[in-house]
């Protein structure tokens, strides 16, 4: 917490009429998505939402499958809240918030069934591709989940599968093709500040919020993952309204992701 009590009260009391940066309650800040920013990674993306900035990188390795799904590859999302991104972040093992972010982004990707995990099987029961999506926060100005979710799927869409040498090692200079991706899940997070629904909250707004609700939507407008956070309760109507906003906003962002990926050169 870096916000003064007086500032917090100011934001809370005025939120229904005007936000600090002049946006309407449902309005996103400007979003930029870049791809191919880390040459060493199999896929990567940088996402900026206003002053929030994250980098997502995909690395692939060969590993053993889980016993209950011997014919399926493995996808893991992990995030790091590096101390460079905010005075609120401390170095050390992942804290609650970063675990929650990883798991919410992970569920969006997993539950949308976007990656065809059966195609990531090399030898049933013994060898599968393990796809690691690592997200690092470069600057924290709120709405980290949406930025991370956009970054993760963009990095996956641009990721290239390395060639396997005859001795079983990987050749990360030559590729056999893209990952089998079918769907673009997009998380949209809105919060409740003094009973007003606010989408794409800044860090200050997040600190003033009572409850937060993330809704991940897929192309056919269905929801594939949801997560309520924050200490306060929400009414049924508030949740339905936030889910509607997510349907609307995710469409614009999905188009932006597609446009970016289309322009991406391998």
């Amino acid at each position, binding site marked *: 917490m870096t916000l003064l009590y007086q500032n917090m009260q100011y934001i809370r009391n005025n939120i229904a009429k005007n936000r600090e940066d002049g946006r309407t309650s449902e309005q996103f800040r400007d979003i930029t998505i870049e791809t191919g920013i880390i040459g060493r990674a199999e896929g990567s993306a940088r996402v900026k939402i206003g002053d929030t900035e994250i980098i997502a990188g995909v690395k692939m390795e060969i590993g053993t499958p889980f016993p209950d799904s011997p014919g399926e590859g493995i996808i893991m999302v992990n995030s790091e809240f590096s101390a460079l991104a905010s005075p609120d972040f401390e170095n050390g093992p992942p804290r609650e918030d970063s*675990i929650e972010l990883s798991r919410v982004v992970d569920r969006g990707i997993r539950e949308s069934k976007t990656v065809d995990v059966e195609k990531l099987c090399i030898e049933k029961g013994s060898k599968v591709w393990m796809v690691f999506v690592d997200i690092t926060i470069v600057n924290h100005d709120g709405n980290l989940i949406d930025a991370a979710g956009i970054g993760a799927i963009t990095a996956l869409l641009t990721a290239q599968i390395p060639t396997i040498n005859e001795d079983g090692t990987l050749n990360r200079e030559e590729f056999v093709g893209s990952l089998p991706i079918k769907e673009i899940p997009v998380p949209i997070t809105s919060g409740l500040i003094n009973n007003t629904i606010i989408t794409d909250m800044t860090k200050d707004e997040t600190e003033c919020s009572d409850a937060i609700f993330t809704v991940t939507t897929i192309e056919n407008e269905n929801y*594939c993952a949801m997560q309520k956070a924050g200490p306060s*309760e929400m009414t049924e109507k508030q949740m339905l309204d936030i889910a509607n906003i997510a349907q609307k906003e995710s469409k614009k962002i999905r188009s932006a992701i597609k446009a970016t990926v289309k322009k991406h050169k391998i």
Partner: protein
Amino acid sequence: MASNIPEKYKTLIKNNKRIDGRTLDELRPVKIKVGVIPSADGSAYIEIGNTKVLAAVHGPKEMFPRHMINEDRAVLNVRYAMLPFSTSERVRPGPSRRSNEISKVTRHALESVIFLEEYPGMGIDLTLDIIQADAGTRATAITAASVALAHAGIPMKGLVAATAIGKINDRLAVDLNGPEDNFGQTDMPIAMISTNKNITLLQMDGDFSKEEFKTALSMAKKAIEPLFEAQRAALQKYYK
């Protein structure tokens, strides 16, 4: 959700009955007992079907670690854990990513009903041990937790109870059991406050259309009612 579904779990609904014989809007049998751990300030044991949970409250007491003290209100520390023998594959003891996240959402699910401001600078420890898991462990733990908090005499504006709404064989059903959770399409744990039916926890994974989400919310409202009754009955029985 596993893609290789065993033959016997491909049909989860037959003649409007589920594999354990329940209708779509029927909860599993609920059993709640208050005051099961004498050394705790408040405790409860709950069974919902085959899911069994112990909840204990210690406090309000001195807050530890001290740097986490909040001078304005008590801090609720929640620790949710699946015990090693609670599932078919042994659970490795100690915190995991999953248990950390569930502890967090459980804390948020209960915080809004507790008058934490009554105990500035203090801590309330809530320990939730899953002794047997058959889906719905976080929901069951929350239902037990608010009974244990009431037993500890902690002032609250209402009870919190939770269940799950899921989608199995393309139809919505309440309170999924293990196979329904593993081989179904959607799982949505949800917690509500007894007095105003506002939502304090909601998570969802799987697939819901807008209409299904709306229906699921109203199904939850109806399904949770018997849980509030069971909570009240258990507390009344204890204090009789």
